[in-house]
């Protein structure tokens, strides 16, 4: 049996066992062993049947999901449409913030009904072409006769039943999660009889654990350690992450915080000039970022998702730096001598974040823009960014699909609809807003992807942000694992690993 035990060192903290508590991968990645979704997003970000075998649009505002037969929860009770209703109700009506993240996914839902045990009808407010995608984030829980399960009860580990391939065994917050195989799983028999996730937040410790064979899989390895890990006999897989890290500019204020001329006098906000933004983006040596800082485990970026993923534009590819051209552009914009700015970012939140600030500083120095890179802890960064204390900063965005990022980062901020949640720079482009809205109304498929690509093309000309890179998720595994299927969303699960042939 020991041979079938899988030991994983993960950076995912798994802060709670409540599947609807937080949308962070930190939670959902590990919980996807226990709970399942109606729809599953595969490694190409395409939707695949999960607990729902098929879905279709009944009308503009109504969706029907057919559920899988003969699925049983870990406690033996059958999975029915009632459980789906319960789950959505729990998210919509029961959970209170801060566990509110999932409400975003149910926002467009007007009502849910269960005409028969294997059918769910979801009515929406207006057209919701991406409802299945939204549902691909939601774990289905079992209806609890005594009412909604509280987070406390779930954390206590008692009522933890899902339909997933592994059953809950034990958990210590921030420490360990142990699972056993669900022998009654509806799908392929899970490969591992036991799975033990050890939460190891220090990358060096994960490297060490993998190097010594103390674990079979370690996730999110630092790129620079890959060579050494390979030498020690472990295998490494990587995939470009479905996300972007970028530099964002303050565009609303008359004077951008931290931006002065060379002698320290305030100047009008230079970022409001498209030429300046273009010059700055042009002058970034993304090659250094991906080759040196990310040791090759990164892809230079020109748009939100790595080229090739649904909704990306093939016209946009990252270019090598063109300092002279950039300098000329700056001069054109009225800054022949450049200016001074403070470049802000979080410390240690994303791979290469702090170093990127410095590499950008090196690049920009070459066009006469002197940069003071400042990295602070993530929470401080967030607070200050939220308070508008920054002029230009390093940000990141990820999502189920490109349009999520497009909307969050670039759509005109609108508290009501929630658009522009990450648009701290207050970029406003009505034409873009309109194009995006149209594209998003399309049904999932090539037309929609094309529309999104066009939107991206359109907006990136304006250079509202300077894309930097898509870093790669790097996982390593030892000899007991035969292969590991990487997922661009960066999930770490036992299902992705298959045992080595004996």
């Amino acid at each position, binding site marked *: 049996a020991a041979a079938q035990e899988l030991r994983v*060192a993960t950076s995912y903290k798994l*802060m*709670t066992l*409540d599947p609807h*508590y*937080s*949308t*962070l991968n930190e939670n959902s990645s590990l919980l996807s062993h226990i709970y399942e979704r109606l729809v599953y997003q595969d490694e190409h970000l395409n939707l695949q049947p999960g607990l729902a075998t098929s879905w279709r649009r009944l009308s503009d505002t109504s969706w029907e999901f057919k559920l899988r037969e003969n699925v049983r929860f870990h406690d033996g009770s059958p999975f029915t449409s009632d459980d789906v209703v319960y789950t959505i109700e729990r998210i919509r009506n029961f959970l*209170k*913030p*801060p*566990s*509110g*993240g999932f*409400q*975003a996914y149910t926002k467009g839902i007007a009502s849910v009904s269960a005409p028969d045990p294997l059918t769910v009808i979801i009515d929406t407010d207006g057209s919701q072409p991406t409802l299945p995608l939204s549902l691909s984030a939601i774990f289905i829980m079992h209806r609890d006769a005594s009412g909604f399960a509280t*987070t*406390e009860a779930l*954390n206590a580990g008692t009522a933890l039943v899902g339909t997933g391939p592994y059953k809950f065994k034990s958990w*210590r*917050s*921030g*420490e*360990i999660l142990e699972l056993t195989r669900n022998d009654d799983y509806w799908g392929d028999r899970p490969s591992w009889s036991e799975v033990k996730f*050890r*939460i*190891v*937040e*220090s990358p*060096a*410790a994960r490297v*060490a*654990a993998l*190097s*010594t*064979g*103390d674990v079979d899989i370690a996730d999110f390895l630092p790129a620079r350690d890959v060579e050494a890990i390979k030498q*020690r006999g472990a295998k490494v897989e990587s995939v470009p992450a479905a996300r972007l890290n970028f530099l964002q500019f303050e565009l609303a204020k008359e004077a951008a915080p931290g931006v002065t001329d060379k002698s320290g006098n305030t100047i009008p906000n230079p970022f409001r000039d498209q030429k300046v933004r273009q010059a700055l983006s042009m002058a970034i040596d993304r090659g250094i970022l991906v080759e040196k800082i990310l040791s090759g485990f990164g892809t230079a970026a020109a748009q939100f998702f790595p080229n090739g993923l649904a909704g990306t534009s093939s016209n946009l590819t990252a270019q090598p730096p063109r300092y002279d051209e950039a300098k000329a552009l700056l001069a054109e914009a009225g800054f022949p001598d450049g200016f001074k700015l403070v470049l802000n970012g979080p410390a240690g939140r994303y791979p290469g974040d702090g170093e990127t600030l410095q590499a950008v500083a090196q690049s920009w120095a070459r066009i006469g823009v002197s940069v003071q890179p400042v990295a602070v*802890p*993530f*929470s*401080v960064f*967030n*607070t*200050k960014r*939220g308070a508008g204390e920054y002029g230009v900063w390093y940000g*990141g*965005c*990820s*999502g189920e699909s490109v349009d*999520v990022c497009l909307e*969050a980062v670039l759509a005109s*901020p609108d*508290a*009501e*609809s*929630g*658009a522009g*949640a*990450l648009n701290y720079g207050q970029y406003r482009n009505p034409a873009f807003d309109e194009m995006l809205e149209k594209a998003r109304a399309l049904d999932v498929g090539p037309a929609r992807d094309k529309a999104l690509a066009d939107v991206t093309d359109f907006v990136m000309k304006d250079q509202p942000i300077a894309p930097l890179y898509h870093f790669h998720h790097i996982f390593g595994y030892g000899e007991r694992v035969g292969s590991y299927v990487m997922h661009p969303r960066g999930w770490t699960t036992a299902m992705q690993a298959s045992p080595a042939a004996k």
Partner: protein
Amino acid sequence: MALLTTITGRLSQAFLLLLVMSLIGFIGIHSVGNPVYNVVNIETATPEDIRRATELLGLDQPLWRQYVVFVQNLATGSFGTSYIYHLPAFDLVLSKLPATLELAVGAIVIATIAGTGLGLLAVTRPGTLIDRIVVTATVFALSVPSFWLSMMLILAGAVMTGWFPPGGRGSTVEVLGGDWSFLTADGLKHLVLPTLALAIPNVALIARLARAGTVEVKKTDFVRFCIAKGLSGRRILFRHALPNISLPIITIVGLQFGGMLAFAVVVETIFAWPGVGKLLIDSIQLLDRPVVMATLTFISIAFVALNALVDLLYAVLDPRVRISA
């Protein structure tokens, strides 16, 4: 009775201290940043999500009102629920306690015994090779930054030799409501490297203090008189020199032990040891105020108690010391 007044005195002081501590913690966290950004998924949350979360956590209230609420809850014995982990904050701290305790106790015991041992060993052979080795080795041990030391231990003890696991906590047994790993062979194996990483600098520190102190004590008249009395070197060392140098050593042991309980972040992080120090730093970084407050409270209580104990030991050791309340 004097004991009673001392204890009540100390307790009321401790109470005041906790009050001040909680204020510092509260205002500190508030000044650092807004926890709500860590509570919601900042890459997807809408302003509405943020606003609602802020309201629900009561973060929209003026700080003084938040504090009053905190104190009221405290009166009912609750530190509130962790923003991040959604567990009762104090339970969370308590759940980390066994891991921290076994590590800290192990390290401090090793440090105290080996440290004084080495220090005294060196001092009995002044100027010899052993003395020089001890002096030099302790200097070097103190000069290695702790993350380096930890990494070297992992390299030497795990990666290269495979003797010990490179991190993690091994299997545990539940005794007295806590999960203890030192009771299992596997757990003990996991304990070795992190314990060493914590102990080594302290061995060196205590050895240096012991050596330096004894060198000084050896010059005093009463030690000369002890020699004149015909006492054996060992007896002089252990019965006379040791008590006379032990005040600073005990102080350091108390301080370091407290530090290990609360602030062994580096070692805990590198060895993936789920302890209080790591929890605290994470919580500070995430501005998880309930957990920070609970941990700070635990730490203050630990330090107050430890220091009271150390003060008591002063009086046990040195009859001239007057203990204040």
